[in-house]
């Protein structure tokens, strides 16, 4: 008898640092394009499609926080590719559920919105 194992996913939370001169949708579109190009460039097209990357929209979170959903087995590849995009992003957390992720983001959002820290980043 054939069993169908349920695919496991992970949620990666990243923070896109705003540039006041560029529209936020434009920043996100540019980020998506860079990420897809980087993953397929480093790990190849097969792994890129196997990663099953989706961008999850959560209304309660500020637009700077972006949630990326991907297959558990490929989470390291996605993390590396995000880091290896020369853009102003912070990789904040990896979680198994959206609920846990939201809880964690609310906990650290105070730090991330700290003006002193962002001064360093800009």
């Amino acid at each position, binding site marked *: 008898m054939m069993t169908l194992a349920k695919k496991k996913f992970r949620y990666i939370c990243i923070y896109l640092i705003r540039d006041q001169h560029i529209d936020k949708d434009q920043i996100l579109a540019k980020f998506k394009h860079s990420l897809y190009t980087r993953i397929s460039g480093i790990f190849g097209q097969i792994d890129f499609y196997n990663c099953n990357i989706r961008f999850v929209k959560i209304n309660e979170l500020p637009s700077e926080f972006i949630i990326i959903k991907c297959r558990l087995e490929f989470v390291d590849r996605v*993390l590396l590719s995000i880091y*290896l995009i020369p853009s102003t992003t912070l*990789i904040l957390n990896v979680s198994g559920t959206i609920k846990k992720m939201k809880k964690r983001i609310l906990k650290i959002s105070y730090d991330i919105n700290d003006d002193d820290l962002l001064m360093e980043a800009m």
Partner: protein
Amino acid sequence: MKIIKTIDLGTRLVYSSKLVKSVKSMFDIDVLGFDFNKNYEYLFYNHENIIFRASCSSFKNAKKNNHNGGNFFLIGSVLDIYSMESISNVDILTIRDLHAVKSFFKKYGGKNIGMEYLLSDIRCFSDDKIGKWFSDMKWVYEQCTKYNFQFILSSGASRYYELLSSKVFNAFLLKITIEPKKYWNDLNNWLNDKRSLY
């Protein structure tokens, strides 16, 4: 209590207690390395979870200013094939050119020097160069184990957004085929050795 600490020895950020706290809570990095020349005014306080990096020339000055003696320093240098003399008394060497390393292992083996690679350097590499970098790192790690060097990966962050979380560090280590637990354990032991000699 966490026994094995996660460490990012190579940042070029300016110290603030808020920064250290935030890095701990957001990125799960316990110990941060700061450049002494950028942060000398903070020597008056004792910092348990930070390490100062001084160059050979500024180390004497750093020790003199370390009034309460509670801070820990590592002497660091960037590997330059044209001035190998300065290498013998350093704790940690930052490698930017892989070609320079090949002749280096046999000559300086057994001195327990830390060999540091900065991840910020590879962010702007092309895809094929990144592939080569991973393969080179695998070779370097093997040589480090063979000749008793401490292999070190650091962020090299000069901006806040160049910092990495422990999960991203582990992803890099796994891709170089290094077991993360072993890496953090070895790095902790190496730092403890250096601390005991300091």
